[in-house]
């Protein structure tokens, strides 16, 4: 693994903070929990984010809810609907971001129309002002993300692209070259949600590694300490866990439950 930035890849403060957090983790791979901003409500979601930090997270992915999230399974979809019903707004979730970014690097995850509604430049400026280090927009493939990437680079925000098992070899380097902070590697052909098994991890991580020199984080379908360990075994630099934690965030005693679950995942990643 190399640590140097390629000359073609503009460094920015957000990408640097993310890469430092991932490469500097004391675990075998960085633990990167996903949480839905404003779920079950804004105040509780701040506490859930803090519980992630206390449980051992290295970085937080913070969802801004969207009415029609095409990359998400039922758990995250439903959480987004509840968050919106409970009054979560873009600015409200950026308030959550501001608090959490004092503890950890925060990467905001949302959908293209939320960006479109403000314009790419204003979107990036708002995120940076809220302390966010990066952004993930799963329905903005490289063909559509030129404008956002240019503004993100200028603003010092890492735009994190995704690759999927279906991404053909000749596209991998296209996506990989545009990666800032990390390359989000989707472990399965499908949407977010808890799944069993980890057999496909090695191949997708190897492909991702060949495509980029930024850290490789594996996500979608990872929910257990065992799977997290398998991802680290396969060489992932970071492990993203979403639906399982979002499910707990909607259950009884969400703050304690999320903290315990993050702790358990962290234990699974202990050296």
């Amino acid at each position, binding site marked *: 693994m190399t640590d140097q930035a390629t000359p073609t890849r503009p460094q920015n403060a957000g990408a640097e903070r993310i890469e430092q957090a991932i490469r500097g983790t004391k675990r075998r791979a960085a633990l990167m929990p996903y949480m839905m901003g404003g779920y079950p409500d804004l105040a509780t979601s701040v506490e859930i984010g803090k519980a992630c930090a206390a449980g051992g997270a290295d970085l937080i992915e913070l969802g801004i809810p969207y009415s029609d999230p*095409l*990359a998400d399974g039922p758990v995250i979809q439903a959480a987004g609907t509840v968050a919106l019903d409970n009054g979560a707004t873009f600015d409200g979730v950026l308030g959550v971001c501001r608090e959490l970014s004092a503890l950890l690097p925060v990467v905001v995850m949302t959908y293209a*129309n939320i960006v*479109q509604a403000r314009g790419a430049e204003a979107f990036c400026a708002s995120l940076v002002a809220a302390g966010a280090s990066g952004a993930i927009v799963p329905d903005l493939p490289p063909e559509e993300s030129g404008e956002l990437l240019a503004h993100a680079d200028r603003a010092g925000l890492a735009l994190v692209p995704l690759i999927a098992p279906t991404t053909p070899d000749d596209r991998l380097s296209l*996506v990989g070259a545009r990666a800032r902070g990390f390359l989000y590697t989707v472990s399965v052909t499908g*949407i977010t949600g808890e799944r069993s098994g980890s057999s496909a991890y090695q191949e997708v991580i190897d492909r991702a590694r060949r495509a980029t020199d930024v850290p490789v984080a594996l996500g979608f379908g990872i929910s257990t300490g065992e799977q997290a360990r398998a991802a680290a075994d396969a060489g992932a630099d970071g492990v993203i866990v979403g639906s399982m934690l979002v499910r707990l965030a909607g259950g009884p005693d969400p703050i304690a439950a999320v903290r315990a679950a993050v702790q358990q995942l962290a234990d699974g990643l202990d050296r």
Partner: protein
Amino acid sequence: MPASQTETSLPDRFGPYGGRYVPETLIPALDELEQAWIEASSDAVFMGELDALLADYCGRPTPLYLATRISEEVGHEVWLKREDLMHTGSHKLNNALGQALLAKRMGKTRMIAETGAGSHGVASATACALLGVQCIVYMGSEDMRRQAPNVERMRMLGTEVRPVEDGTRTLKEAVSAAIRDWVTNVHDTHYILGSAVGPAPFPAIVKALQRRIGDESREQILAKAGRLPDRAIACIGGGSNAIGMFAGFMDDPSVALVGVEAAGDGVDTPRHGAPLTVGGRPGILHGSLSAIMQNDEGQILEAHSISAGLDYPGTGPEHAWLRDSGRAQYVAVTDQQAVDAFKKVARLEGIVPALETAHAFAYVFDGPRDSTLDVVCLSGRGDKDLAEVLARD
């Protein structure tokens, strides 16, 4: 022939609109679909098979009929393009059959579709029965209630109808559910998208398959009336019957192209389905940038229409561009106007139109009479809507 030998890609933008705003997982499938259509549409054997099925199985060309009593009522000639007479009773089969044939050629063994009114679901179920492939249709549970006869027809045809319980349980949620299925099963599945919406290349392919409506209409009106119409009029849900009709007259500047959206309770209320008419900031829904209904935050709003097929907060990207460029105009009529037109057409012509189509008729009855000859796309028959209309009395 919709595609020429030399094409290497299909249009993916219409002015600023269109594009491919979908998860990375689907991008290769969209590339594959585009290439497959380019090859198939210039393959005489494939197109010959499609043409033969459209003729002998579906009943194309559909008639162009001079509706004399409607003409008397409005004071000018009104000709109806009888898509209601095609097999399954709506224009949707033009697209569903073409896509299903294409997908079979691509080696896909599982087909999924969304449906609002059920017309596209029935068309997809029909095409899949004909071709002997598995079919799953996503349908909002509210639409399953409103369009119960079509649910039974789909099941009779061997299709699994999966109720969608998200949001308002209508067309938007059904499309989202179908896209999520496709993301998960893309290796063996084709998504038969039912309107001129979605990520590229869908809007271009759906237009290529639906343009028979307009191409036939143009030929027929020249043969029968010896002239071009002053207006070509069609209702707009996602815009497939309209883009098909408009395509035939696009290069005839004397022909006004009029798309009729659902005003629901009124375009001055939040309860409508008229993103083109109302205007505002463009947005991204279901994979393309177009005219959509959204709030300031960028959240998609719930549409409302009595007609399940027009109850959709988005629209095809080419329509957004035709509006901005001034080539087509878009208007909206209310639920009540549509119901009144539905009844009027039944009694004047002995034709029960789909509630979707009734919107186009409402414009003919209630809109400006600055035309001497209209061609109206009678996109489908209204048997499915009888219960809904009778319940309003």
